[in-house]
């Protein structure tokens, strides 16, 4: 996994609550068996009109959000289906950070598996960020996992709350499975204690 140390980028603001994973990546694109190439389908039904042209009314299609890599949204982002295709499509589109008052549990975990940093901030901070991002010019933020700070160049600074283990995995880009396999002895002991270990090697 790609490590996450610091990231600075343009903010795309999506002023909606309860954005579900069906919107992030509609089901017709879940038939693919690859992990890559989902960015073109991100928010497909919102980004494109029925004739395939860009929907100019959709926030992400605004010119000032060109090249955005930080997504700002309202509460309960990523609710619904467990599909990891949602973070795959966000990452493939170029997003490295998502900021919202709250996230759905499964989506939140899935982000960490894919080098995306989900940042939870209080509602009033989110309101402040929407305000700052509403100007005509592109708005930039920086997220650092070294300092655990989210900052802009105009005085905004908030700490990023993150579980120490998740922070370490993100900073070092650790392979989660490899890390767990280091505990093979404990897993085998558990299986032995539960009468399951006969056919297993460490």
């Amino acid at each position, binding site marked *: 996994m790609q490590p996450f140390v610091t990231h600075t980028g343009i903010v795309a603001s999506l*002023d*909606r*609550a*309860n954005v*579900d994973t*069906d*919107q992030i990546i*509609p*089901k*017709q694109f*879940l*038939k*693919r*068996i*690859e*992990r890559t190439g989902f960015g073109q389908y991100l928010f497909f*039904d919102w980004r494109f009109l*029925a004739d395939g042209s860009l929907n100019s009314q959709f926030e992400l299609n605004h010119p000032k959000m060109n090249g955005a890599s930080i997504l700002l949204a*309202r*509460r*309960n982002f990523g*609710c*619904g*289906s*467990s*599909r*990891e295709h949602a*973070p795959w499509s966000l990452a493939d589109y170029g997003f490295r950070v998502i900021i919202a008052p*709250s996230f*759905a*549990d*499964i989506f939140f*975990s*899935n982000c960490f*598996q*894919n080098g995306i940093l989900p940042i939870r901030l209080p509602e009033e901070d989110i309101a402040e960020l929407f305000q700052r991002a509403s100007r005509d010019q592109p708005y930039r933020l920086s997220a650092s996992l070294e300092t655990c700070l989210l900052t802009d160049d105009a005085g905004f600074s908030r700490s990023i709350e993150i*579980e*120490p*283990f*998740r922070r*370490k995995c993100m900073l070092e880009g650790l392979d*989660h*499975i490899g*890390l*767990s*396999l280091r*505990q*093979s002895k*404990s*897993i085998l002991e*558990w*299986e032995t204690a*539960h009468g*399951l270990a006969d056919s*297993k090697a460490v």
Partner: protein
Amino acid sequence: MTTTPRTLLEKIWDEHLVCSPEGEQPILYVDLHLVHEVTSPQAFEGLRLASRKVRRPETTFATLDHNVPTTDRRLPIADPISAQQIDTLRHNCQEFGVRLFDLGDADQGIVHVIGPELGLTQPGMTIVCGDSHTATHGAMGALAFGIGTSEVEHVLATQTLRQSRPRSMEVRVDGILPHGVTAKDLVLYLIGKLSTEGGAGYVIEYTGQVIRQLSMEERMTVCNMSIEAGARAGMIAPDSKTFDYLRGRDHAPRDFDKAVARWEQLPTDALAVYDRVELFKAADVVPQVTWGTNPAQVIGVDGTIPDPANFSDEADRSSAIRALEYMGLESGRQVVDISVDRVFIGSCTNSRIEDLRAAADVVRGHQVSSSVHAMVVPGSGRVKRQAEQEGLDTIFLNAGFEWREAGCSMCLGMNPDTLSPGERCASTSNRNFEGRQGKGGRTHLVSPAMAAAAAIAGHFVDIRTWHYR
């Protein structure tokens, strides 16, 4: 010996905790891993690239459900990309030694229908699947939740999962459900009260007189939709109904009485403390219909479409405005005046034999409205055969319903069963998100009886007034 009183969740958690390495997330052992074609190909590919094996293939079971046609199974699959995904699961199961319930298999069906049906799902287990409705299995007194594909790969490789300990929430419903009110209405009502994120970070344990009275299949309907309230899982303590349901099923323990003795220790201790408690009264619940684009946007069938101006919260208000526009509805309209174009009876929420019986009871002696296209999709091959033995298929077919093969079908519309833009559907499924059943499609979530009545009448009907023939 005295022990600290514990909840059902705590007992299962403690039993399955492998280790908590210093500074890391705890590692939890997984008893049963269920796999389907949509969220697994990338996980198997990851194993292959890292030269890893499935640690315990004998506790891993796969089925084809999300992306399969529900029409004649003898025909080839028309969509080549779907066909490739289906073939990929077949190939992966063969290569890694996993039991697959393939399309020709008598036991094929929706993953959350076949798990309990085959006796794979048992009290006290930890169960995961790359699907958010895995909470269904919690009805048997298991800790069951949905995971992402990277976690699917982790479970395949290690038979464990990294998990932070969830908090516990008791949702207690006292009293008895009024006439015409079903488990589906109850859970929709609870989601409306808890909100779509009210359960985030929690595992819900449903308790109270109503829950004890529900059948096992009704309990599955309730637990199934826990995720729609944001909860990681939903569960119900096992009791004699649970044991009676399991006895004699294919994968039930051989020494059943010994297993029962163990399972009887699982229910939450009298003095155990939940992190949060929410109380509800069954008498307050009426048949429910969703009006918006998330399952918490729900009202009683005797109500009217709400006015967004009455929502005090800004996000709720803007969400309601968007939802009404998408759904093509105006505030103040009576729910029973809303007409439907399609009716879908199926999904992991409501496709079991009791659901089909409830729908058939409503349909018997009636005809589907000429303006409605209605279909019934049984949850599994077993449910389908059982229904046919009882003659339910004849009731549906004679009334003008389509009678299909088992699969997820129009719940998520990955296969050809989809709504067209603007079509309005009364659906027994679990999600009314924008475009969920087809781009531009408008979904109203209801119980099987309410869906059946809407098919006959051509509009929503208060099932409490239905004329059964």
